[in-house]
């Protein structure tokens, strides 16, 4: 053969006619108020897509041969038409994988889910113990998630997902998460904490330390194929060995986000007008936004490495996560804030505090719900086991998340 065959990753970098999969947040309404919520959810937005509009989007996804959508929110299952939309999507050959905190997964729902090949469930759990989980997700949320998993397992739903956002507080629980997944015949999915939405407010406190990143990387290399990552740790590939999956930022190239009001963003972690490509309600609908928007066209052009281009690891990490840079106030063509070579920390030290961009949409409730997270009391391991300083671990008392915004 004489034709040059581009590596697959290059095809993806240039974008596809249809996304491989996309995230669709159905509502900003949520019964929880997680401290690190990537979409600043809480209250429903009156402009959210109607049932008929959602069905029209599904029709279009079917025509574009989008195999499945990752439905999230907010808490998608609190939408009264949620199951109707799930049934409509699967009847139109658009598979559904939805993320939930488990609030609606009772025995009856679990049996329904177990019976369908076209629906998959992802239960969010950010601590392997109630203490660690409820610290960021709110009181009672661990019990809710566990009850949902019990119901799914009892109904015979094999291989549902347990989705964990990796934080400073839970990195030492990776084996415990795996044990929970094994107990319920589920599959563990680990994803990266992004400074998106309310996550920006708590990122400094929650994002893994450099040592923990290394620990996480080693764990992923060890457990590789059995654990899903949403391909979100490609910035760690700079440690050496590439992790299983696609080591590429797919934003606007192979993935995107449709938000509850129909706005199309480059990725779920980039809810900001800078990454807004269009709206599904505009003429031409989602297809036109995906194929013709100025933003996505730009993202599909060959990217320059900027400040990272001369780094030996650039081919591995490609500069890391766009959203993580943006919301920490770093330039998009520079290092990721969690750059494993340490360039991110240097860059962060030059950012004026408070100068980083804020999300364009905020649906947080004005007051914390009663079950809201109170990030005040978590006891974590000593900073270092050999640390004898009596003040080790002391930190100034913080305000509860969501207050004083």
């Amino acid at each position, binding site marked *: 053969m004489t034709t040059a065959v581009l590596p*697959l990753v290059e095809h993806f970098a240039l974008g596809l006619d249809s996304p491989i999969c996309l995230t669709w947040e159905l509502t900003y309404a949520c019964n929880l108020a997680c401290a690190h919520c990537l979409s600043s959810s809480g209250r429903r937005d009156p402009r959210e897509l109607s049932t008929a509009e959602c069905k029209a989007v599904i029709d279009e996804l079917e025509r574009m041969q989008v195999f499945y959508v990752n439905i999230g929110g907010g808490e998608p299952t609190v939408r009264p038409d949620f199951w109707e939309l799930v049934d409509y999507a699967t009847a139109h050959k658009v598979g559904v994988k939805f993320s939930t905190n488990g609030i609606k997964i009772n025995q009856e729902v679990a049996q329904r889910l177990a019976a369908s090949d076209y629906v998959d469930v992802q239960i969010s759990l950010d601590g392997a113990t109630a203490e660690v989980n409820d610290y960021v997700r709110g009181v009672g949320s661990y019990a809710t998630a566990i009850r949902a998993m019990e119901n799914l397992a009892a109904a015979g739903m094999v291989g549902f997902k347990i989705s964990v956002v990796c934080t400073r507080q839970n990195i030492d629980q990776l084996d415990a998460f795996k044990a929970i997944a094994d107990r319920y015949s589920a599959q563990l999915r680990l994803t990266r904490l992004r400074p998106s939405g309310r996550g920006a407010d708590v990122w400094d406190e929650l994002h893994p330390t450099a040592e923990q990143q290394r620990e996480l990387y080693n764990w992923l290399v060890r457990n590789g194929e059995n654990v899903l990552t949403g391909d979100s740790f490609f910035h760690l590939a700079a440690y050496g060995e590439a992790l299983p*999956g696609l080591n590429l930022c797919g934003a606007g190239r192979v993935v995107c986000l449709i938000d509850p009001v129909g706005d199309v963003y480059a990725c779920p972690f980039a809810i900001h007008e800078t990454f807004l490509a269009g709206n599904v309600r505009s003429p031409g609908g989602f297809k036109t936004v995906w194929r013709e928007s100025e933003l996505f066209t730009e993202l599909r052009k060959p990217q320059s490495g900027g400040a990272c281009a001369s780094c030996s690891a650039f081919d591995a990490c490609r500069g890391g996560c766009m959203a993580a840079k943006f919301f920490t106030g770093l330039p998009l063509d520079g290092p990721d804030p969690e750059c494993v070579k340490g360039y991110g920390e240097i860059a962060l030290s030059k950012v004026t505090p408070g100068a980083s961009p804020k999300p364009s949409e905020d649906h947080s409730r004005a007051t914390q719900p009663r079950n809201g997270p109170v990030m005040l009391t978590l006891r974590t391991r000593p900073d270092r086991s050999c640390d004898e300083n009596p003040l080790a671990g002391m930190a100034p008392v913080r305000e509860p998340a969501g207050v004083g915004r």
Partner: protein
Amino acid sequence: MSAAPMGVPAGPSTAGPIGEGVLPPFAPDLPYELHPAVEVRPEPFGALLYSFKTRRLSFLKHPDLVTVVRSLGDHPTASAACRAAGITDPARLTMFERALATLAATETIRERHS
């Protein structure tokens, strides 16, 4: 050229194979078909495949392989489907059969009984 399918668990959040049973080994002289739970989407590089059964995404990295996979059901054997798609060079045929073996192992294609 690169005709091997990549069983990459790619895309934001895709599953690996779950509860895979023991599958019979691929045999080029048997009839095959695309697994009914698999959807094929043509792409400039070949095709993107998704199995609703295993919830696994895979990629066919050559248009000729896409032709073969899609026409398996119309031919008496897997080898015959390859030959009909113009894969006659022995070395190339071996590569294609290896690719088909991977697809059979991941339940993307299956033996046809009819």
